[in-house]
């Protein structure tokens, strides 16, 4: 398949079943809401080393939040409910509770719940107050700038993590520019996050390593500096490869995001240095979800 002179390889992205939750952070203004959101989702690029994958889903206007203040929507993904609950509690306690003017609310309904204010309330040392409004329980924890409001719990759901595609270009600046534009397009969509820095990964990995202690290591087949030394997936003209990883609440969310991203990259075309679009997989044996690039772009 070719789009605007760019080859779409007949391969697939291999993704995994995960657990996800959404929370809403509000603050006095968007600056402080984003500050809390960015801190909370920092060091959350991959479950391999961070325990969870997290990102800001979108900014929210005052009329989209429970308390009428600007805010951000955050998605967190974990491999198990236990991991997710632990990370949510720690990150909320250390990054949102501590951030001036913030409050945190559930961003997801449903009967399966993860504790939010339910555990954080003990920071109030007995001075915390609960408030039950419209069937939702909120905790009011006294802090030095007034009160920290945290909803009792938030919903969780099954989700998909690890949707991806690789951008192979003549040069690194050309690959990076195309990926930056793709990230902007993909972040317009709901229910997805791009957990890596700026939404882009330069260190695509394979499973395992020659070193026993490592569960993942560099994907040498896509490293330009190893061309000629190892079995490579790169032709002589490919100067750089970047990857975009996307997590979503449903497979359809992943497909929409991948399509938006690949379309944007392809809009740069062969004349701006984009050669091929590929995808990362592990032979199809590890992940439950296979996103075939030709079907995604059909």
């Amino acid at each position, binding site marked *: 398949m070719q789009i605007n002179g760019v080859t779409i390889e007949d391969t697939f992205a291999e993704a995994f079943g995960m657990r996800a939750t959404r929370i809403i952070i509000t603050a006095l203004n968007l600056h402080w809401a984003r500050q809390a959101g960015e801190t909370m989702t920092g060091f959350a690029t991959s479950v391999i080393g961070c325990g969870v994958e997290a990102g800001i889903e979108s900014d929210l206007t005052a009329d989209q939040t429970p308390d009428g203040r600007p805010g951000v929507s955050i998605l967190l993904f974990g491999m198990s409910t236990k991991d997710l609950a632990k990370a949510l509690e720690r990150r909320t306690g250390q990054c949102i509770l501590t951030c001036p003017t913030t409050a945190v609310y559930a961003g997801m309904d449903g009967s399966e719940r993860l504790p939010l204010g339910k555990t954080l309330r003990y920071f109030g040392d007995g001075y915390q107050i609960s408030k*039950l409004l419209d069937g939702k329980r909120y905790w009011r924890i006294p802090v030095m700038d007034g*009160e920290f409001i945290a909803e009792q719990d938030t919903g969780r759901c099954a989700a998909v993590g690890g949707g991806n595609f690789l951008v192979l270009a003549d040069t690194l600046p050309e690959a990076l520019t195309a990926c930056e534009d793709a990230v902007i397009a993909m972040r317009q969509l709901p229910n997805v996050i791009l957990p890596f820095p700026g939404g882009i990964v330069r260190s695509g990995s394979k499973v395992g390593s020659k070193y026993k202690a490592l569960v993942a290591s560099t994907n040498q087949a896509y490293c330009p500096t190893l061309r000629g030394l190892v079995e490579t997936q790169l032709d002589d003209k490919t100067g750089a490869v970047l990857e975009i990883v996307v997590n979503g609440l449903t497979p359809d969310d992943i497909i929409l995001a991948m399509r938006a991203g690949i379309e944007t990259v392809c809009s740069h075309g062969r004349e701006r240095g984009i050669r091929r679009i590929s995808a990362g997989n592990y032979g199809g044996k590890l992940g439950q979800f296979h996103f075939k690039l030709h079907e995604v772009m059909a």
Partner: protein
Amino acid sequence: MSLILRQINEQKGRIDLRGITPQRLATLELPAIEQLRITADHQMVPLSSLFSVEGDPMDELIIILGNNRVDYIGARMASGTITLSGDAGNHAGSGMMGGRLLVNGNGGDFTGSAMQGGEIIVQGNVGNATGAPSAGGLCGQNGGVIHVQGHAGDRAGECQRRGLLIIEGDAGDLAGYRMIAGTIYVGGRTGEHTGLGMRRGTILLNHRPDQLPVTLNHNGSLSLIMLTLVIRQLRHYLAGKTPEVSFARHVDRYVGDLACQGLGEIIILT
């Protein structure tokens, strides 16, 4: 079509209508409904001796009253709607668990007493002890919403534990007396001893009272995020009459009652 009960015999004694709820009547035929036994002036009598019964038994029950001596209307109802035309007696909606009771008139004493869920809307005034515990009880309103569009008497919200009590007009003495938790809003003026003995909970006052119990301490002028959440719920009932409060606005807050180591709050919106 709804089921309509129309009072046809305005005797002097009080009538106790507990047990006449939409969920119960919906399962019965008209003749069976007419033979239901109710208490009137301390005697057990068939419903049809005091009320005409017409329409279809459904989830909606319309009761048309001739006087204000019919008690326990909608008591312990769990679902459906009762629309009351006329003034309710005492204990309307007492122990109510769900559904909706609409009083197109005034309510008596103990309206919504110890209610647990659902919605009571009184278009007129109510008597004393709105949402208070039943005689001998320790817990008042434990859920749901009581919306009084007129004035309320003394002891409104006594021992309230959960839920929302809205009084658009004035409240008498001892509003929120021994309140355990929950939320009370008074749009008009309040009498004496508001919040006396409160343990937790929130009393929102739209007018500054002449005095508050000495065991409630002034907490300062604060901006409270929680207030915007409460106001959002109030707006559902008060619509255009909802006080305008944004998160940036400072309000006066009193806390206590210190006499019982309480963490309750009285917030004065003006």
